[in-house]
């Protein structure tokens, strides 16, 4: 099969498929569920198919010239395929988890529609080689996440969803202006052209600032982060998908795509970004220590960990960027596991306040084990995958001479350990405070366990993702040596 055609399929199978899902939902909900999974798996499988050519250094491109410079360009390089694989894979697990989780709520058609559409948009985003289409898919992810966050349609839920939508859109609009500035500088929205153009001229600072606003709002970084904990009202698979595994990674991806793979920033920008993200990591970690709602804690943890990813990307040398990308993957797996685990707890006990939980390890041992595994991965403890990514970050930062900022992040890492253990202890240890809550759905628990096992496997078989990431990093122009 023509490789460029695969690119189209990766994006459009889920998008077109999602449109059909409500129709299938009218026929049979099982069929719809199955198809939803199938579409996502299709994307995943096709993304996997791209790995061999990408590893051999090839860059696949699909390009269609359209009017006004809005060319539809899909580019599959290492970075894009890496993100595509990670996000589609996690999505598949989450969709699988949703089968049971969502089965007793209304609007399931809309749910699957939005889920799969989200994945399709995500694929479009990562593969897009044109700023306008990048923005296009970016907003589509915002749109779908808005509906997914407000899935329960209660007033408060919808208000939170609106907040998330507004904040991210505000950032996205700022970013759009940034894109337009770049367009004005280079005369094109095409990333390849932009890359060439910026070899000779520096990129406008205003554009960088505006794009950063977009990135930070999407990736929930200070000062645009508060929508993320609030969005915890969503169903757990949604929070896992959007806020842990995929949506918030969009910002980091675009950061890497633009600021590293397309053009270079001046060092001052790196310093500024590092300071912001360090503050973000610390403040979110502190908030996670104080919060009592299980999902909010995990959400704050996400904010904090996103700070780490930016830390790697902004340090900007090869090691650190590789670490940042690995972090995206490892954190995605582990944090999805945490959110899904929180979902199991929430669904089986009906409680989200950790002060009212306790002793669940006795009734929900598998969940507890998986939750612990995922926590350990997030903390960065070997043999879990999170260890390597964290090490690479620090190693990269130190070899760039950013020791002070590394120490700040070290404090953040300390706090990660503390708040995650606080969470684990309060939920699973101690005296049981609730009636005996069992793990009702084997499928859901299996999904959580699978993520934990994958986090472990990600550590033990680290060389595969690591190699992939190295390849992805090699093509970047914005690296600091």
């Amino acid at each position, binding site marked *: 099969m023509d490789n460029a055609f695969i690119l189209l399929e990766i994006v459009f199978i889920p998008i077109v498929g999602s449109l059909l899902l409500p129709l299938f939902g009218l026929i049979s909900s099982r069929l719809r569920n199955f198809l939803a999974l199938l579409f996502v798996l299709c994307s995943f499988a096709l993304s996997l198919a791209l790995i061999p050519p990408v590893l051999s250094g090839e860059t696949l491109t699909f390009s269609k010239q359209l009017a006004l410079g809005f060319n539809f360009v899909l580019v599959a390089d290492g970075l894009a395929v890496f993100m595509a694989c990670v996000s589609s894979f996690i999505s598949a697990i989450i969709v699988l988890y949703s089968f049971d989780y969502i089965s007793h709520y209304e609007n399931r058609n809309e749910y699957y529609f939005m889920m799969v559409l989200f994945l399709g948009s995500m694929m479009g985003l990562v593969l897009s080689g044109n700023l306008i289409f990048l923005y296009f898919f970016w907003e589509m992810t915002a749109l779908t996440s808005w509906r997914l966050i407000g899935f329960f349609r209660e007033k408060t839920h919808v208000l939170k969803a609106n907040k998330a939508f507004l904040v991210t859109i505000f950032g996205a609009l700022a970013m759009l202006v940034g894109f337009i500035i770049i367009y004005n500088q280079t005369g094109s929205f095409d990333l390849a052209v932009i890359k060439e153009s910026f070899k000779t001229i520096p990129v406008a600072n205003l554009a960088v600032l505006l794009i950063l606003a977009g990135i930070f709002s999407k990736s929930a970084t200070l000062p645009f982060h508060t*929508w993320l904990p609030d969005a915890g009202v969503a169903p757990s698979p949604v929070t896992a998908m959007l806020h842990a595994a995929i949506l918030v990674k969009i910002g980091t991806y675009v950061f890497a795509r633009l600021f590293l793979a397309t053009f270079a920033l001046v060092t001052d920008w790196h310093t500024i970004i590092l300071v912001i993200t360090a503050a973000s990591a610390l403040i979110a970690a502190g908030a996670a220590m104080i919060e009592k709602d299980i999902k909010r804690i995990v959400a704050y943890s996400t904010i904090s960990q996103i700070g780490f990813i930016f830390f790697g990307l902004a340090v900007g040398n090869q090691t650190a960027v590789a670490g940042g990308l690995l972090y995206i993957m490892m954190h995605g797996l582990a944090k999805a596991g945490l959110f899904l685990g929180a979902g199991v707890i929430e669904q089986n006990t009906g409680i989200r306040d950790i002060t009212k939980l306790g002793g669940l390890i006795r009734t929900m041992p598998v969940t507890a084990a998986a939750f612990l595994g995922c926590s350990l991965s997030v903390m960065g403890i070997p043999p879990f995958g999170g260890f390597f990514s964290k090490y690479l970050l620090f190693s990269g930062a130190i070899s760039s001479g950013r020791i002070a900022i590394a120490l700040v992040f070290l404090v953040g890492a300390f706090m990660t350990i503390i708040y995650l253990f606080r969470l684990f202890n309060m939920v699973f240890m101690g005296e049981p405070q609730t009636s005996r809550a069992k793990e009702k759905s084997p499928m859901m628990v299996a999904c959580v366990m699978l993520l934990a096992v994958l986090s472990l496997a990600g550590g033990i078989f680290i060389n595969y993702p690591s190699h992939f990431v190295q390849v992805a990093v090699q093509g970047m122009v914005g690296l600091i040596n």
Partner: protein
Amino acid sequence: MDNVLLLFLIVPLAAGILALLVPGKARGPKELIILAATFLNLLIAAVFFKTGLTYSFPWVPGIGLEFSLRLYHFSAFIILAAAAFAFLIALYSIVSLAEKPYAKQFFAYFLITLGFVNGAVLADNLLLLLFFWEGQLITLFLMISVGNKAAFKTATKALIIVGITDLCLMVGIALTGHLAGTLTISKINLPLDALGGMAFVFLMIGAISKAGSMPFHSWIPDAAVDAPLPFMAFLPASLEKLIGIYLLARISLDMFQLHPASWISTMMMIIGAVTILLAVMMALVQTDYKRLLSYHAISQVGYMVLGIGTAVPIGIVGGLFHMINHAMYKSCLFLTGGAVEKQAGTTSLDKLGGLARKMPITFACFIVAAAAISGAPPFNGFFSKELVYDGALERGFIFYLAAVAGSFLTAASFLKLGHAAYLGKIREENRNVKEAPLLMLIPMVVIALGCIVFGVYNKLPLQALIQPILGPERLAGHSFAGWPAKAALVIATFVVLAAAFLNHRFGVRKNGSGLKASDHIHYAPILRGIYDRAEKRFFDPYDIGLKAVNMLSEIAWQCDRAVDWIYDTLVVRVTYACTHQIKKAHNGNYATYLVWSLVGFLLVVVFLLQSVKM
């Protein structure tokens, strides 16, 4: 041939996983697995003891992570020691944990820990070392948390402390790798300049925290109470000391050029001295068998750190010798504690007494080990301590004084412990106590004999095992085996031991019982207040740290709320204020609207007209 090194990993890890899989209720399979695995491990360690092997394959080339293992004299020594302890403690724990529901899990974690320890010791790549090093965190956590109901809190404490220090180790490794340009331990040789010193400090934090030195010690006394006893003998008493000090020795001796003149050396000595004194002060006033021992486990680390920190050969040899000695007598002591707990059902000293007659072999082992830890000749502790004294004296009288004071208090506290637990009147409820079962006695006796052998025939460990570590250059032909060279120091030691005995007599007479033999120190005017606060964990670095973190968190939380306020309140209010004004302007009167239009029109016209004149 070289890949036999993998057996050190595969055997315990595979056995551990297997142990997790076998049914836990039945007696037999799990015991068999742990015994077989530890024995096999010991066997391999013994067989390959003298061979220098290296094994290496690239694991993750991109990040400098090489799976390289190196078996040479030092690591072989540690591996052998660890294997021996593991085997003996496994033997012991088969009995001591026989009825516990968590035995299976404990065995599995035990074996996995052993595998990780082997890996950490063998690793010749810093990152690989870190991998195995931090991997122990999980089993540490799990092993503690299978204990009693409150054990998970201690487990968490342990995990947080060790986890944090391991992160420091990680940063240290990153820094070292950056400075040296390689992560292969045997190729690293760095000067202790500013960055090098920083790297050293980070690595050292990881190492001494594993060993249980202050200020990273505070989980150990808690674990002594909560965790299963074999755990204490296995990890804090022996294996963690072994690998902690092993790493400390490697960074001090191989990876960095540690000189007596450098500030790092002084710092290490201060840490050592402080650890010795503070921990032993705490040990003195404990009233729980295991808890008292656990404070000693901390205190003795001080000697090792002090010894290595002196950076003079005699001190280093002393420190390393003390490491292996301590692992022996302390695990022996913990095992006697375990035997007492198993037989008498408690380790609280006020409920014990007079057990010497009921458990004579245990008592004998206790005597040997206690004498060894107090530094009484001819047991092994005496010789290692003398070496450390000598080294410390070379660097400064104050350090020597601290070490000797520590010795005094150690002796005092063990006199108290022995007196309270084994002598005196037997209590009514302990009438039926019997000697511990054979399988528990064997390890104790073996280790106690080891203490005697290593003391009397100290040439064997020193010349065969320890002095090669320093290498011929450092030793410059000296040998530290045999009777201590400086008679003055020996005399001083005797004086101190005698003083400790007199002090004990005084305390017993003054306060009436062996248990209260240290009360005159405990309730001395100034010390009393300090002790009270210490008992309330006023000085627990962990609690202080947590408080600091909580304060930081509170600040962060306020920042977060402030940011949230901007979105939830400020933006909304400002927007609605604008909206309100606009709505108010639309008063429904069309004349108003007409005026707007006309004004707009006039402005448009004026603007257009002036645009031409310009």
